[in-house]
Every structure is written in C-alpha cells, then in structure tokens.
C-alpha cells in the first residue's frame, strides 16, 4: 500500500470503523442467516439494545467530565426494586411511583458526589464502593428475594398491588424503543448544542484550564453524575417493565455492555470523546453481533468473549490513535 493511501485510510478507518463494522456484520449475517434482515428481527435488535443504550447514554454524560460511573448497574437494580415494590407492596398509582422511584435512585448520585467531590476519592474506586453499597441496599430492601405480583412479602404479609399495564408497556415495543431514541436525541442535543454540553466537555477535557477559565467545575461534575444516575434509574424502570417483576441484581448485567457501548462510541465520526450518537452506534454494534450469533446458535455463555473482544478492539483503536497523534 502506498504511504499516502495508508495515511488516508487509517484515519478514515478509526473515524468510521464502528459504522463499517456494523455494515460488515449486517452483510455477513444477512447472507448467512435468511431471517436476519426481516423487519421483525430489526425491531427485535432495537428492542434488545434499548435498556443498555439508555444506561450507557447516562454513562456517556459522566464520561464527558472524565468520570467513570460503575454504580449504574446497581442504580438500575435499585430503581427496579423500588418501583415494583411501590406497585405490589404499597399499591401506589403510576404517577407517584415512577417519579418517586427515580427521585430516590438519584440519591446514589448524591453519595457518589460526596465520595468524589468532597472526599476526593478517584471516581473508579468511589463508584465501585457505591456499586456494592447500592447493590446491598436494594437486596436488603427486597429481603434478598424478588418481588412479583401476588407474591407475599418475606414476613408473610400478602400483597394485593398490581403492576399497571401502562407501566409494562414501557418495556414493550414500540415505547421501549421510543424512550431509547428520545434519550439518545436529548443527550446528543445537550452535549452538542447547549452551553452545558460545552462546559461538560471543557471540564473533562482539561480540568485545570476549566478551573482557571472560571468554569464551576464541581457543579458540572455533579451534574454529570446526576445525569448518569438518572438514566441508570430510567433503565431500571424499563427492566422492571420488561420482566414485570423485580429480580435480584437485575441491573448488574447491564454495566459492562453499557461501558463497552460508551467506549466503542468514542471514535465515532472522529470525535475521540464520549458522545451520544457514538454510544448508540456502540450499542447497535453489540446488539447486532449478539443477535446474529444467537441466531447462529452460538451459546449465550460464550457471548461475553465476543463482547469483551469488541470492547478491547475499540479501545485499542482509540488509544492507539491517541498515541500516534
């Protein structure tokens, strides 16, 4: 390959590699699997990635200020336990239980802020401890078990509450996909077209310069953690709506795919930083791959090998690009 061609192709690849990978996978799977390209399968892919995407979109905001938030999985668990308990144990109406569950879950962000901004614990380990604590909290709250309609509480008290059908529709097509698309769009607009987005990127891009430029950096860091807890809680509500009950550690499995989607998205369109559309593309890539592999009868327990490798590949391209800059 001539060097000038090489010089043009490598940057192009690192810019559009994710999109290219999605296209290549699409072509490959639609040739190998007759049912892959059907409309119902496309919708099923979108449905399968919607919860991960919503959680990942919140993490994307945290990443803009250079803050990794590992507590999103357990925040989702907490929100799902809370909302189902409100319905089943306390028979609360929808318009009370939804906002209340979201609001209570936001306290996770407060705790993260206490650890990170007040005690100055590095974000990775701070949110790691939050993750444990919240996981334990959610489990203690539910008494170590799941909550579903008609199931008595641990002390034997019978329950009469029902999960409203309107709530369950949050976990069904089309609403689940619409929620995801709105979340992506809103965060995309926030990050790219508002003052707040600029200042979030400024804080994460060079915190010392941001501070000396008179940007209230801690306010923006706090805002970012609140956003990540909010979307994690929203994801938790969607989990509960989808499975119609609260399961032990239901959100834990969403942490790693969300982290992967957000990091895969870094290189999208050559941005080299966390961004909403990139995160969406990352989630699509993982979703397409998972869907196709399942249809090719690859066992579910091997799936993490593939997902992990994709993450490693995406990170390698992002950081290798930085190194050579």
């Amino acid at each position: 390959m001539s060097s000038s061609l090489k010089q043009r192709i490598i940057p192009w690849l690192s810019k559009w590699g994710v999109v290219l990978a999605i296209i290549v996978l699409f072509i490959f799977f639609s040739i190998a699997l007759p049912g892959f390209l059907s409309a119902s399968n496309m919708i099923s892919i979108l449905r399968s990635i919607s919860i991960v995407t919503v959680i990942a979109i919140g993490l994307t905001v945290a990443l803009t200020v250079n803050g990794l938030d590992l507590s999103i999985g357990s925040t989702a668990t907490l929100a799902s336990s809370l909302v189902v308990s409100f319905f089943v144990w306390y028979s609360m109406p929808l318009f009370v239980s939804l906002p209340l569950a979201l609001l209570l879950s936001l306290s996770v962000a407060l705790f993260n802020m206490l650890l990170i901004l007040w005690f100055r614990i590095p974000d990775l380990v701070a949110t790691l401890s939050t993750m444990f604590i919240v996981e334990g909290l959610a489990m203690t709250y539910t008494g170590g078990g799941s909550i579903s309609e008609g199931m008595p509480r641990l002390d034997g008290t019978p329950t009469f509450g029902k999960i409203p059908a309107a709530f369950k529709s949050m976990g069904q097509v089309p609403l689940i996909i619409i929620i995801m698309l709105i979340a992506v769009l809103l965060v995309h607009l926030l990050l790219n077209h508002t003052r707040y987005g600029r200042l979030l990127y400024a804080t994460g891009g060079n915190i010392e310069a941001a501070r000396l430029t008179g940007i209230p950096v801690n306010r923006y860091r706090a805002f970012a953690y609140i956003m990540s807890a909010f979307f994690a809680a929203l994801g938790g509500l969607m989990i509960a709506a989808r499975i119609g009950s609260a399961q032990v550690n239901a959100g834990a499995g969403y942490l790693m795919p969300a982290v992967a989607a957000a990091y895969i998205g870094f290189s999208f369109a050559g941005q080299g930083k966390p961004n909403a559309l990139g995160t969406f593309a990352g989630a699509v890539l993982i979703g397409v791959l998972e869907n196709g592999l399942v249809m090719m009868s690859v066992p579910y327990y091997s799936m993490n090998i593939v997902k992990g490798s994709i993450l490693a590949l995406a990170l390698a391209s992002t950081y290798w690009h930085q190194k050579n800059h």
Partner: protein
Amino acid sequence: MERNRHLLEVERLNVKFPGVHALKDVSIRFQTGEVHAVVGANGAGKSTLMKVLGGLYPEYTGEVKFDGQVVHIMHPVHSRALGIDVVYQEVDAALIPYLTVAENVMLGWMIHGEGRKNVIFRRNHIKQQATAILHRLRKRIDPDALVQNLTLAEKQLVLIARSLVEKQRFIVFDEPTAALSHRETEELFRLIHELVQTEGIGVIFISHRLQELYTLAERATVMRDGAVVASGLMHDFSADDLVRLMLGSSEAVDTKNEVGTKNANVTREHMTFAVHAFTDRAGRFENISFEATGGQVIGIAGMVGAGKTELAQALVGARPLLSGNIVLNGQNVRFSSPVQALQHGVVLIPEERRKEGLWLAESVAFNLTIGTLKTLSRPFWQGGWLRSDQLRQESLKMIGALGIKTPNEKKPVAFLSGGNQQKVVIGKWLLHHASKVYIFDEPTKGVDVGAKRDIMRLIRSLTAKGALVIYMTSELGELLAIADDIYVLFDGRMVQKVSAHETTESKLLYYATGGV
C-alpha cells in the same frame, strides 16, 4: 586530596532542536573535588547541557570524555555507570513516595548494584547500610520515615545519599535552591562542601542565584545563547561581571519603538487595583503588596522559582492564601475561586498554556469562546442553546483581530504554533467584555519573535482602553520594553520596586538573582 582525581570533559558539544540551536560548540572541563557553577540567563543552554550529561539527549554531536576516554552517553543508565548523577529540580521523579528513606537510598543498589543478587529482601541490612551513609553525611533523618512525608530539602538529601551508595563521582544539581528556605539552603551548601572535601566528589551546580555561588563554587562557567562565554575561577568574576556576561553587550534590545509609546493618554475613568500583604498558605511567597491603576502595565520580574506563577494563581483565587486581600476600585474583594475573580474582571493567562489554558483537541472556536458562552447562548429557560452563528462570527473576528494563523476556526489548537496558541488564550479573555485586569504569566515562553511583537502590541492596546496588565516574567528585557513600574520578586518576597525608565536589565537581573 590528590587521590584519584577524575576529569569530565565536554568538547565542541552541539545540540540542535527544530528551529533552535540549543548548544553551540560547548567545551567545559569538570573535575572531582571541586564545585563548578554553571550560570546563565533563561535559554542559555544550562539545562540542555545537564540533560546531555544525564543521558537524556543522545542525539548530541561532539565529544564527552571521562578521564581522557571518549564515552557515549546515550541513556541515563550510561551516565550512572560512568559515575555521573543528576539531581533534577523535580526530585519526586526520582523517588518512590511510599518506600522508606532507607529503601530509597538503597534503590540503585537493589536494582543495579550488589543488592540485585539478593532474592530475599534484607530489610535490616538495607537499613544498616543506609544509616551508615546518612551518618557519613552527618544527617539526622529517620531511615524508617516514608519519603512522601519528607520536605524538599530532605528529599534532596536522600538523592545525595543514594549517589554516595552508588559511588558516583560527579553530582549535577539543577537549581536545587529554587524552592528551599534560607536555612535549608545553608544546610545544603554545608553538605555539598562535605561531599567535595571529604568524599572528593565533583559537583556541577546550576543556578540563577549569583550571590550564593560565591560561598560555594571554586570555578564558574557562564553561558549565553547556547555557548560558553567565559570560564574561570569564581573569585575572578565580580557579580557585575557575571551579570554582564550573562546578558551580553548587545542586550540593549530596544523594542520600545516597535510596540508603540507607553502611557497613551487614558481619558477613561481610572480603575484602581491594590494588592495587600498577599501571603501564600504553602509559603511560596509572602507579604506581597503593590498598587496600580487602569492603563498601566505592572511588571513583576523574577527568575524560575521566585514565586511568580504561584502569585499569579493566587491573584485569581486559584491558590489558597494565608492572608492578604485585593482592593478593586476601593472595594475590598477576596477571591476564593477563579469564578469570583472572573466576575470582577480579573483574568489569568497562565504560563503552562497547554496544560492550564487550552483544550488542545478542541477547535480554535471552542477555545476562544469557552469563557464567554453565557453571552453566546440562550438563557437557562431556553435550554442554554448555543447560538452557533454568533459563536462562529465572534471567533472569526478574534482570529482576524489577533492575526491567529489557522486555516479556519474549526482546526484543533494542537495544530497551531506556540505563538498562535498563546493568542488563542489571550483572545478568550478579550471576548469576555468584563475583563479589566489581565495577569500574564510568562506570555512569551515558547513564542517566536513575530508573535512576541504582536503580543506586546496587544498589551498596549489593552492598556490604551483602560485595562490593567500585570506582566510577570523572567525575560527582563521584555519588562523594560513594556512595563511602567517593575517589582522584583526573589525567593517569594518583593525585593525592589523600580520604574522601567530608571533601570537597566543588568540592575534587574542583579536584584532578581538575590543582590541587594
């Protein structure tokens, strides 16, 4: 005294960087058993020379000879093997904070020395050896103390002790006293005397502080613009000689005409700005006071380590004070963060622009407008939406006004030259209409001549509009050209106030290097 003298010679040493000839035919002889001072103004090549000896610039040309033998120093390991140890200003880079004093002293021995053969870590043996060395230096320092809890002076001591363990023959000190207190400096000098007298080590001592060298050095080499201009016995040079040699005779740079006249008649109402008894909480400067009015350029002269940068940060509330306050237009203000300083129109153009002033991966427009987004976007209740047209226009206006060389406003600033990057940092505050006090910290560092002139002109136009400029630098010639009043900072204290047209560069240098 005549035991095993060693000679370290550099001959016709040349180092070139893109655009800079950092060392030009440098030839110096160093020998063990004496202190050899290397002095020079900023950019004279002292640090480059030291880094060649430390093995950090393998691309040098010319010869380095050890006891007459040509040696090739391509890597720090080579210089250590030859017996040359460099104590850099950033001592922390050479120490492991969570190990003890003894372990740090014996580090080289454990890795390269006999200790590397030991599979088992012999704590007591290591402690004994380290204690013996520290004893030889007659220093009471707890060998079990963790290095992270030591003072700077103690950390230097640990590095010196390590050199002794490794039986180094030459120790190069890079500005070791820049951040030391008076008492600590005296202690260090006593120690260096011991090293030379009883251990027979050769000390190469790099410093700006001329006065202290007379008590320490036998021999001195003066460098200017990458070349050696004089070399000889220390007491053959007077302090005046040294200053003159450091500056050169052609140093009467008259940039005044180029940058226009001073004190353009300001018709505006004068703003007043007074700093009272600023004292740093970490002790880097104390009792700094000065007064100024709008339309002036106040110069603050000081060499590296004098406390300029710390003062600049404290002025915008980015560094905690022990005491002191600012009186702005008769109103008492105290900034606890740059946010507040900004509200009062006090802004900083920091020295480390790449680290503290710019977002390198972001566009010129992003960098120019980041401090003024509030006026370039819709209010909160309209979602804080960016007015992208205005954003672009303002950026283009500033790019034009400052002559920033960039293909367009979307180019990441990482691709701009140093001078153009500096213009971007300045432009950020010009767009902020409330700015009235501009603090420049070493604004011409790494900036080419043309951009330097542009920056000077810009400062003139700021003061012509009634703004106050506080200009901090170690480039003393610039101050003469641009400043009205000059305050000289030495060792964290204001040692002199002079008027720019009543002083000379050599006087300034004399004060800034500790003369009184």
